[in-house]
């Protein structure tokens, strides 16, 4: 009898776990799933933004070239950063951007480069942006 009860408990436990795991796969446009019923990872921080690091290797230049370095959301045009920088200096930025941001554009004068924002960092430089003139 005790063994039977244990078996039932085990089945119920497994079934309960299965339901919880399945609840992570909430169907699209499911408007009757209360927040309290979903399984959320313990480390999830509920943030709709993320830290994004940009590091730029400076370019050795003959003269000191200073200008505005900016980082822009390609889709919305939102400027995440603007600052005065020397082209020969390395640059390291820690930005907070929406996780929904698809791509970023960095600008320094006429130099413009686009990058995917799906990760958390980009390493770049000022090279390969100029055609032979």
């Amino acid at each position, binding site marked *: 009898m005790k063994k039977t009860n244990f078996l039932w408990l085990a089945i119920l436990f497994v079934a309960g776990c299965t339901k919880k795991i399945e*609840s*992570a*796969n*909430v169907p*699209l*446009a*499911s*408007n*009757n*799933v*209360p*927040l*309290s019923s*979903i*399984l*959320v*990872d*313990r*480390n*999830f*921080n*509920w*943030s*709709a*933004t993320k830290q994004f690091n940009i590091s730029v290797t400076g*370019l*050795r*230049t*003959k*003269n000191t*070239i*200073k*200008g*505005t370095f900016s980082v822009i959301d390609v889709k*919305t*045009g*939102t*400027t*995440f*950063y*603007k*600052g*005065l920088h020397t*082209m020969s200096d390395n640059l390291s*930025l820690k*930005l*907070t951007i*929406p*996780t*929904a941001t698809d791509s970023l554009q960095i600008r320094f*004068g*006429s*130099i413009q480069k686009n990058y995917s924002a799906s990760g958390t960092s980009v390493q770049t430089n*000022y*090279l*390969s*942006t*100029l055609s*032979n*003139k």
Partner: protein
Amino acid sequence: MNKILAAIISMALFSATTNAQTLSIDAESGNIAEDQANCWAFGEIGYSSKDGQTINGKWSMYSNTPSSLDPSSCYIKSPWLKPVRGKITLTIKFESESDAKSRQIIASYITYNAAANESAEGRFVRFDSTSFDLPLSTTNQEINFPVPEEIIKSGLPYKIQLSFVGNGGTSRYIIDDISLPGNYFSDPSNNCLPILDKADTDGDGVIDSEDAYPDDATRAYNTLIPGKSEGTLMFEDYWPRTGDYDFNDLVLGYRYTIVTNANNNVVELKGQAIIRAIGANFENGFGIQLDNLSPELIKSVTGVNTKSPSWLKVNANGTEAGQTYANIIVIDNASRIVPKPAGNKFVNALPGELVLKPATINFEISFAADKVSIDQIAINPYLIINQNRSNEVHLADKAPTDRADTKQFGTQDDDSKIEAKRFYKDKNNLPWALDLPAFVPYSIEAKNITSAYLLLTKWAASSGRVYTDWYLDIPGYRDASIIFQNK
């Protein structure tokens, strides 16, 4: 008359002169892209460190096999430079004697003409050349061309182009140590055009066209948080117990403008808090902590909407007293600022009730001069529950302030654990507050936010990996019948 005027304008345009110097290129960067980025241009020229393809140092330049006498077939073109008197010099040798029919170096200059094309290159003028005896010599040869007097006298920038031409045979040019008398005058950050004197009225180093404060040397840039649109903070105020998850107990629009100077340090933070809804009976306050910034780094705080509640003590600079990090209490009591009208149970939360205009609080935090860089700004917003200063609600995993009663952590439904830096999440890992980087509507009273935002659960269940835009107004993302309509 027109010629005189043009000359005066030209002199003014190119007034940035430096001491005479030499512009040289020797390929020792080992990276042709680096020299291209510095405005050198190459046609059918590469860099090599192979045995037999170098002259001095580790690297030299080499041409492709010449097959034309056209100067544009194979060349090295300088950046813009202000030429001075002297000789253009270079060292060359040939890869092999081979069976060449001819080999010739042509020296040309290119005039500046802003209206000519994107690169502002005007006339191409061939001014000198040298031909090589056959069979070709594989030993080093020093070549020089005097800089033409007409381009020195003009005072205008020029480019020098050296073309390595010929036909017959396979022997290539090996080239090194090109030296041009003149001052470098290209701007690698402006399409390699000549350096222009751009207006900088306040002299802070940021040109007027890029300076948000062109007449103020202490300010240069605005950085908007979260962006062009205002952001939205949504709070539940029943902490440490879970509530109804409508996330409208206090709904605040917000916008921060971080003003920085030419040193990229923060001058001031202009904040805007907009009380949009109060779906609560509690009288809640709102503050921000600037994480990791000492209150001493703040010069002053103005514009906050507080009426000296008993729980609020402020320092002389306007920050809250008794805090390790700078805290600014922006709103002591949202219900005092936007009281619910007679007949309303809430403010802008129940359909059918009188809708009130949102109230905007504009505040300003001034920083000590050149002490705080922009990447040190980390804004930690929080709600103060029902005039009890000890009860705060922060975004998930954002630390409480020193005034919070951490003894309540881990009680009721709260599952905060200080040692794990886990804050304001319940036992099911659900938050009491959300921060969305856009202006978004909110649920009507007592309606679970997941009923209004249909993909929120998918986003949360995936730990934020899918439907990162769940809060945006995209077809299929929202149920409008659950969203409060401001009408």
